[in-house]
């Protein structure tokens, strides 16, 4: 018998863990800006359950390659699926929120 897929229901006390990975290039201007922009978004929208991993491509180019990164700065939502990729300095706040599924109706 075919198993029916059920949409997982949010339960009280259980927080969805969001894993974001930001690829930066040392202290280059766009990378610093991306870090600051993402930090502001995270502070506002993720009270808990967020894990942010920052990968410096100058130190770990092979890591970036393994993850299919083309340019830096670049942001990936690793979890939950589906994965999301954003490139640039994340200055377009609305676009970042929309891509991460955080945009609220105003």
């Amino acid at each position, binding site marked *: 018998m075919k198993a029916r897929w059920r949409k997982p229901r949010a339960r009280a006390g259980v927080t969805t863990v969001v894993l974001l990975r930001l690829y930066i290039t040392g202290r*280059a201007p766009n990378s610093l800006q991306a870090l600051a922009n993402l930090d502001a978004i995270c502070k506002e929208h993720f009270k808990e359950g967020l894990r942010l991993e920052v990968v410096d491509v100058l130190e770990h180019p092979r890591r970036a*390659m393994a993850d299919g990164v083309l340019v830096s700065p670049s942001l990936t939502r690793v979890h939950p699926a589906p994965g999301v990729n954003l490139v*640039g300095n994340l200055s377009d706040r609305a676009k970042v929120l929309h891509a991460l599924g955080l945009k609220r109706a105003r």
Partner: protein
Amino acid sequence: MRDELSGGGRLKLEGLLQGLPKNSPASKAVDAGEIDAVIDYAGSNVVLLPAARRALREAEGQSPAASDEAAIANTLLAALPRAEYQRLLASLEPLTLRSGEVLQEQGAAVPYVYFPVDCVISLLATADDDQGLQVGLVACEGMVGVSLALGADVSSVRALVLMTGTALRMKAARFLSAFRQCPPLQLAVYRYAHAKLALARQAVACGCFHASEARFARWLLTMGDLARSEEFFLTQALAADLLGVRRATVNEAAGPLQTRGLISFSRGRIRILQRKKLEAAACACYVTDRRLPVSGS
């Protein structure tokens, strides 16, 4: 791990940027100047864009004065008094210009002026839609859109990016307003326009009286000076267009220079191997050009 952007690094960056899928988010972010580095999968390396390279170099501990000077990488802007420069700075938008991009069309309105930092732009006078003769080169010593300062809001040339790099862009209206209020900027731009006119005149004489090999050698040296690199990309077809000759003539000009070991020219990659000897092979116009405050036509 990081690749410096002189010579080979610059070529590698050009190749990597061209390899990004067109209209992809990565490509758009590069155009918007929001990217610091491109991952080089073939070399397991990271290639920095010019602005990021400068910023990282400064962060690595150069003196504040030196880094300050590095910020004023365009000679025309660097000639301005510091206060005037600071005033202009707010209206200058840094961006990456990519090889093959057309900034202005001949006969069209001039929406922006560009101050190149480490890109090279060719100014072409077009006879047909797709063919143009090079009448000037612009790099970190000058600007694109000088016609605005001379009272014309329509471009008399097509501006084509030859070498990828950073430039500072300013809206035409803002430039005109700053130009009217700033006598030092007026002086710098008039001097530059005069030098460019002199170079264009010299180029006309050169085209009439000098052999194609000597002209080609002169052009390579000028390009090398402006690109601040002994190596650059240029296809034979584009070289022929720029110099206003047939493709076969480029072959005839490049062949002897290559045989004598002065340059290498293969698959669009040109490398100056022996600069002194190439200077000897170039026509006298190269020396004449260098006596002017700016060179490059």
